[in-house]
């Protein structure tokens, strides 16, 4: 099997395997779950194998069915794409293991379809197929959000669907304009063809703006962010974790691809208005997301608003378009995915085990679950961007890039984002560790009442609050309690590890970034 054959398997494996849990679940849900875990683990192995090949042989291209790339379906794996593919596989596996609530066959199948769609977005070399994969992942995400019980989830899922579909369709319209301007859809052919059509031409500018706005909806940049908090708060914990880690991250990756591979930096230089607009929207996202997070009391909604702020930073990196800033944006995409995924897994386990949903509910929880509490603290530090975490590396590159480009305003926004995130993430950690234990019992009692009404789907045996902290696993079969802790701990270890190895991470992206700029 050659390198080229492995590449389509990245998409084909989860896509085809999505049928398996659907069929197996009729016989045994446990078996269906095991099969899903096996596929997700195989996806991690496959993505790692492709990454190793790319490291040795350089970028790998593949054309499905050997139809010329201008008409056919091209796939491309460079260092950036494989890094994202590994991230998708690892985060999906982690989020899946981070919650042990029983899942039906269709939910398991949707989970694999989501991975297939996200991986497809990552490895495609064709702007139209990017739309198709975006919608495959989108559809799976809408359905997964709505898979939680109750009207909340249905309404949040529908809201997400309507907004997300408008975003994807706007992106499609942008693809249409680019196609009319150039007559091709392959990313490699589009770059020179768009330059030939004239970067300043109305058609080309409209194409970029429509594609950027469409992806901006998926990214949840500031004025287009309203779907996110509802969706994350209403989704089942594991789904919230995987979407928080990957949903917007992959859209951010797509925006990077479209900006630098399709339109190229020459377009940004030729049309400064577009660049200014992107900067303004991104800066507004950073500030507005931070302020909204500051005001929020529900932890999952707070984390969702924090994402709005963090993806604003990614947008800043893209708009600045200097090597340092773009590296900062890419490192930020990876770092945010790990940190936010881990935080949502932890939030899920706090909600399930202690009925803690709001910041005030978190008071003193660290004393009861020291390990999870510590993981949350480390992940929050990465969100704020303090050394030695990966969040710091990302903001450091971004700030350096802004200063290097002479954009003091952007540098100020990056610093302001650190202060804002310190305020909202610090509030959570402060409650977690220093929250008064007085009234704790009463809090837990009301929370339990809530929980019984809403979360009866969860493990029936896990009486909330009855489990002593630290050693929760021994009596109730172990894994239902321990797996989220392990996932959160691994995420915390990863943000520190990636932070310490941030130079290596930046070096990994360097050939791709140098190719763009």
């Amino acid at each position: 099997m050659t390198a080229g054959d492995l590449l389509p398997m990245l998409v084909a494996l989860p896509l085809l395997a999505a049928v398996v849990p659907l069929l197996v679940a009729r016989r045994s849900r446990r078996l269906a779950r095991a099969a899903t875990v096996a596929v997700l683990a195989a996806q991690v192995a496959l993505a790692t194998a492709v990454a190793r090949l790319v490291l040795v042989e350089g970028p790998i291209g593949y054309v499905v069915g050997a139809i010329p790339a201008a008409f056919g379906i091209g796939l491309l794996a460079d260092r950036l794409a494989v890094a994202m593919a590994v991230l998708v596989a690892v985060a999906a596996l982690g989020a899946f293991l981070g919650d042990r609530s029983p899942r039906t066959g269709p939910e398991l199948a949707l989970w694999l379809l989501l991975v297939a769609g996200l991986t497809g977005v990552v490895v495609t070399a064709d702007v139209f197929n990017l739309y198709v994969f975006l919608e495959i992942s989108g559809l799976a995400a809408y359905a997964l959000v709505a898979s939680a019980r109750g009207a909340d989830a249905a309404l949040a899922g529908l809201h997400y669907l309507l907004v997300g579909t408008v975003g994807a369709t706007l992106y499609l319209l942008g693809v249409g304009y680019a196609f009319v301007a150039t007559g091709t859809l392959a990313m490699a052919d589009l770059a020179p063809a768009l330059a030939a059509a004239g970067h300043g031409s109305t058609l080309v500018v409209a194409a970029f703006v429509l594609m950027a706005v469409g992806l901006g909806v998926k990214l949840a940049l500031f004025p287009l962010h309203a779907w996110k908090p509802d969706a994350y708060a209403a989704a089942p914990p594991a789904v919230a974790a995987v979407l928080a880690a990957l949903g917007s991250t992959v859209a951010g990756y797509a925006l990077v691809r479209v900006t630098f591979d399709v339109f190229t930096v020459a377009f940004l230089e030729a049309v400064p208005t577009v660049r200014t607009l992107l900067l303004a929207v991104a800066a507004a996202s950073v500030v507005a997301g931070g302020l909204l997070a500051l005001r929020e009391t529900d932890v999952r909604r707070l984390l969702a608003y924090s994402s709005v702020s963090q993806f604003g930073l990614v947008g800043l990196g893209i708009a600045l378009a200097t090597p340092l800033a773009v590296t900062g944006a890419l490192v930020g995409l990876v770092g945010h995915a790990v940190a936010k995924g881990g935080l949502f897994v932890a939030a899920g386990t706090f909600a399930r085990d202690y009925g803690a949903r709001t910041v005030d509910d978190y008071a003193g929880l660290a004393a009861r679950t020291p390990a999870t509490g510590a993981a949350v603290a480390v992940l929050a530090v990465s969100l704020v961007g303090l050394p030695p975490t990966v969040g710091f590396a990302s903001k450091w590159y971004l700030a350096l890039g802004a200063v290097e480009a002479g954009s003091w305003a952007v540098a100020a926004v990056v610093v302001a984002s650190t202060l804002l995130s310190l305020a909202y993430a610090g509030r959570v950690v402060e409650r977690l560790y220093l929250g008064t234990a007085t009234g704790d019992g009463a809090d837990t009692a009301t929370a339990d009442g809530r929980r019984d009404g809403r979360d009866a789907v969860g493990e029936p045996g896990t009486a909330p609050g009855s489990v002593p902290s630290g050693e929760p696993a021994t009596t109730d079969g172990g894994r239902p309690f321990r797996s989220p802790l392990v996932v959160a701990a691994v995420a915390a270890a990863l943000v520190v590890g990636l932070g310490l190895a941030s130079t290596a991470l930046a070096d990994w992206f360097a050939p791709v970034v140098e190719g763009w700029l």
Partner: protein
Amino acid sequence: MSELPLGVDGWLAHVVFALLVGVGLFVLIDDENLVKKVVGLNIFQTGVFLFFVTSAYRADGRAPLVAGEGPFVNPLPHVLVLTAIVVGVSVTAVALALIVRLYDEYGTVRLDVIRDARAEAATAGPESTDGDATGGSA
């Protein structure tokens, strides 16, 4: 494909495309009926699909059959639109399924009525319906 359909027919097609997109978006945003929102979404998407079809247009072009004589219209956008239609149908199916769930819960497909019901539930018993209260800003 650099030859844009800028004849009178071409302009008309673009006007129709813009109208459909505008009408669809307006209905999607303005109407409180969830089913009509989905219909609006479909009109919006159809407008975009027709834009693709328009881009394939070529004066005196024929259906792109290998046996026939040229010139042909560009077949690629037609293929793209077929794919996009499949995506659109799937989205519609999921949306309608969710609306059925909401209807089962609230007995209405009107968003304003659902909002009122949720607000009422939130004020009536904030303790028991906390989740609804936090989602009330939807």
